[in-house]
């Protein structure tokens, strides 16, 4: 348990010779609550996909929970960026959340009572238990997003990656959701890595901030303060979407 939750060394990645990440070095403690900020196309999602083992780094190496990425999917939770558009896929809410238990399941096994119990518990946490039997296609975008969050929680992850998890959810669930993450982080010591533009909520919840714009700038702070937020804006970030009004932030000021 002493090894860091995430450790990268000179991590680089490029799409078609176009560099997306360059020499990223980071070390994230166990039990950290990390916000990842940065402009769109700055490499935030790419970084998370490398840490999940979906992409292979072109240079450098990464370790997650003391193992190469993707080695132990049952220890990792993931809420991908929500896809827009109607989801006609024939699956109900309960079956979707159960898929979050897939990492715990052997090839020959069916989902057990415990898997169902964890799925129900996760649905309760996001306030979607009464929708268990509803089909995914009949839900609103926000409700669907809550189900995907429950799917990640159902796997009882030691580290949870979230890619703009609240982009589609309603305002009422919004703060409750971050409280839920805080609770997970404090009570179960779950390491949380969340990509978000929502500085207002993040400031009262996160413990550290990383800014990704090809390079990574890590701000380790036990408390989020005004100074911390200023540091965030001092990242070489061109544009940060904040609410509906984009703030123009100048480079190197």
């Amino acid at each position: 348990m002493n090894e860091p939750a995430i450790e990268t060394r000179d991590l680089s990645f490029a799409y078609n010779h176009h560099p997306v990440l360059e020499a990223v070095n980071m070390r994230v403690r166990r039990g950290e609550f990390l916000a990842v900020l940065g402009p769109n196309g700055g490499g935030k999602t790419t970084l998370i996909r490398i840490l999940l083992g979906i992409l292979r780094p072109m240079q450098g190496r990464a370790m997650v929970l003391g193992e190469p990425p993707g080695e132990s999917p049952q220890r990792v939770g993931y809420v991908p960026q929500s896809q827009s558009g109607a989801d006609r896929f024939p699956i109900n809410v309960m079956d979707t959340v159960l898929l979050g238990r897939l990492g715990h399941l052997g090839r020959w096994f069916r989902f057990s009572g415990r898997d169902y119990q964890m799925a129900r518990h996760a649905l309760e946490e996001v306030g979607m238990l009464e929708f268990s039997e509803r089909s995914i296609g009949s839900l609103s975008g926000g409700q669907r997003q809550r189900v995907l969050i429950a799917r990640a929680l159902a796997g009882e992850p030691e580290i949870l990656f979230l890619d703009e998890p609240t982009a589609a959810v309603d305002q009422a669930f919004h703060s409750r959701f971050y409280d839920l993450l805080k609770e997970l982080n404090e009570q179960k010591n779950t390491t949380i890595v969340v990509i978000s533009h929502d500085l207002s909520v993040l400031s009262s919840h996160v413990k550290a901030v990383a800014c990704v714009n090809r390079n990574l700038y890590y701000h380790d702070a036990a408390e989020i303060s005004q100074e911390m937020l200023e540091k965030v804006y001092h990242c070489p970030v061109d544009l940060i979407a904040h609410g509906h009004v984009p703030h123009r932030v100048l480079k190197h000021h």
Partner: protein
Amino acid sequence: MLEILQYEFMRNALAAGLLVSIACGVIGSLVVVNRIVFISGGIAHASYGGIGLAFFAGFAPGLGAGLAALVSALVMGLVSHSRKHRADTIIGVIWAVGMSVGIILMDLTPGYRVDLMSYLFGSILLVPTHALWSMAGLILVITALTIFFYKDFLVMSHDEEFARAMGVPVTSLYFLLLIMVAISVVMTIQVVGLILVIALLTIPSYIAEKYSSSLKQMMLTAVIISIVFTQTGIWLAYYMDLTTGATIVMVAAAGFLISSLIPGRAS
């Protein structure tokens, strides 16, 4: 009405329709939810190149179709994985080139004019009994693989990104799916011909999706709908003296129209 069952070719035709319906329901559902209808059409048409080669080189056309379907499935799989943004164009090219190669090889085959129509529109009334057994065997394999990898196919089809994070071997599964599509396509060609394969692979699944709350249920419903379409089509074609493949597809189209009037579960 039952007197047509006394003919072996009719019994075989109905049995072939039944067997192909199982493949079309199970694999067709995966084709529809994974949005690989276009690739499946490409595989069907490219397989004609294999049929041409078989006649030219003198081996069994079924084998030629199978090999060409597998090769084109793998090439299209590679293309759609590595060059996503232009994949549809390249698949379209393979589609047409495969077909043309088949036609030209047929032209070059000395003194032998094969009935092109039987491959384009199917030859369900000519299915021999031994072919039924190999179809049954292949369907057994496809169904077993689908059951074995059901949860993996489910999570891959629903959310590929999440599936990868869960350690599901998405790329291998995708190629396995394309291979199963190739096998189903070659079997279905015998029944409705390569031009109409896509109708039988997609229409029953598309209708079933509307009334299903799980992938499993969608597959079963699609199998049943497909059986109704093929059996009705074969009977109608016999009594009205029409081309069987086209009649089956017209029955499917009628079913599609009727289903559009019946509301589904999520509306």
